[in-house]
């Protein structure tokens, strides 16, 4: 299990998580990907979702279960996650591109339209990415939510950006 050795998932580890949508759902449009694999006492994502698409329940160590049909990919849960483990992936952004919303806490923030490096879970540069939006609502409490556009094959790989 690479998660506990290196700090990031291999693809099989990820697919089996209850917060990760099916491949079928992923091709249908924006949806949240909750990369939360350990039973730690935490549930703000459940409360952040207005559509009740994330369920944890009374035992707050349970993993978040995603009801992907209820999820619109709004991204309100992203900044609520103290572990920064929530992303929104839209593989329908264009024929060849996907949009990814990710949490970001480094200054300076990128500008909209800026080209940045798309990094995978190990921090390796895998592609170029264009910044679409930088949201920094008061409610997000200084965790910005950044939307980037990447080549579609990297939709489930890119999880961070590096400014050039």
């Amino acid at each position, binding site marked *: 299990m690479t998660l506990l*050795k290196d700090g990031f998932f291999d693809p099989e580890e990820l697919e089996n998580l209850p917060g990760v949508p099916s491949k079928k759902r992923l091709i249908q449009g924006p949806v949240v990907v909750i990369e939360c694999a*350990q039973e730690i006492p935490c549930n703000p994502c459940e409360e952040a979702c207005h559509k009740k698409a994330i369920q944890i329940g009374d035992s707050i160590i349970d993993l978040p279960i995603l009801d992907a049909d209820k999820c619109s990919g709004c991204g309100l849960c992203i900044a609520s996650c103290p*572990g920064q483990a929530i992303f929104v992936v839209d593989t329908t952004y264009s024929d060849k591109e996907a949009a990814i919303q990710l949490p970001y806490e480094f200054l300076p923030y990128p500008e909209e339209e800026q080209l940045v490096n798309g990094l995978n879970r190990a921090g390796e540069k895998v592609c170029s990415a264009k910044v679409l939006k930088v949201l920094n609502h008061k409610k997000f409490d200084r965790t910005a939510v950044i939307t980037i556009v990447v080549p579609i094959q990297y939709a489930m790989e890119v999880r961070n950006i590096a400014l050039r």
Partner: protein
Amino acid sequence: MRKTEFAIVGAGPAGLSAAIEAARAGVKVVLADENQRPGGQLFKQIHKFFGSEAHHAGVRGIDIGTMLLQQVSQQKNVEIMLDSVVWGIFRANTSHTLGVIHNSKNIHLKARKVLLATGATENVLAFPGWTLAGVMGAGAIQTLVNVHRVLPGKRVLMVGSGNVGLIVSYQLLQAGAEVVAIVEALPKIGGYAVHAGKVARTGVPILTSTTVKEVHGKDKVEKAVLVQIDKNWQPLTGTERELEVDVVCLACGLSPLAELAWITGCKFTDVPELGGHVPIHNENMETTVPGIYVAGDLAGIEEASTAIEEGRLVGIAVAEALGYLAAGEAKDKKTEISSRAEQLREGPFGIARKQAKEQLICRSLSE
């Protein structure tokens, strides 16, 4: 000689929470802390906390600290004494007298109940070169970076992958330092995977089964030598590698800061799951010395969120013992607080602490 009903040593999350709960019930409280500011470690915690809404989950530690300070300032019967080192506790039949150095003057503070919420001290790791300037504890680095906004160096080697090592690595990155690597002697990462993931996806390598062999430098750290270790903690010859770094940050765990509890005569037991020797205490957090309570890291190394709940518990228990709360009301409040604390000890990261705490309380019954 000054007198109060309830003296608290340590104005961190546990001490502040105890003061708030006790004062709300009507208890007169004096809260002593050796620092210039109250809040303990909370003001270094710039990350969002875990838990549920009742535990202030999703709120940054620094903001929880501000909230607790606001709550305590609303209580007219709490006096906070800063720059106050409590150096001794003397027992009498129904009270305790604290020796306190306050503003360079020695004063005696007599209290009917005392809470020791002294927190923890960092564990260190000794290796050749560990006394060089630039080898620092994670707590010192957090103070420099997050409180005083000073970067101690540019290229950091983090030793330890528990939550402290992972969080401080992330905060160093936020402050603009480069974290060259995180080494972990165990074969797996100690802290939460989500904390590891945040650091890993910036490109910081986390090297398990690896430790620091030695650190070199003329007057300060210039280079660290890493070595892989086998499952018996023996270095594997030939696996050494050098890293150019100017800071080596030690995040090797914490131990309860227990001197005051020792000299007060509290009975201790060694509980590795709770960070070492901890005072035996009952479900009210009262030690084997009547009237002396413990909470927070001194009662077992845990999180700030559990320290808050334990502090609240002591506040209620003390208010009850002093006659400010009826038994039934106190019981309801204590049950509610305990269940919130228990929630934080669920799951694979909490179960050992949960069991250890339960055993401590059982043990207190036979003392």
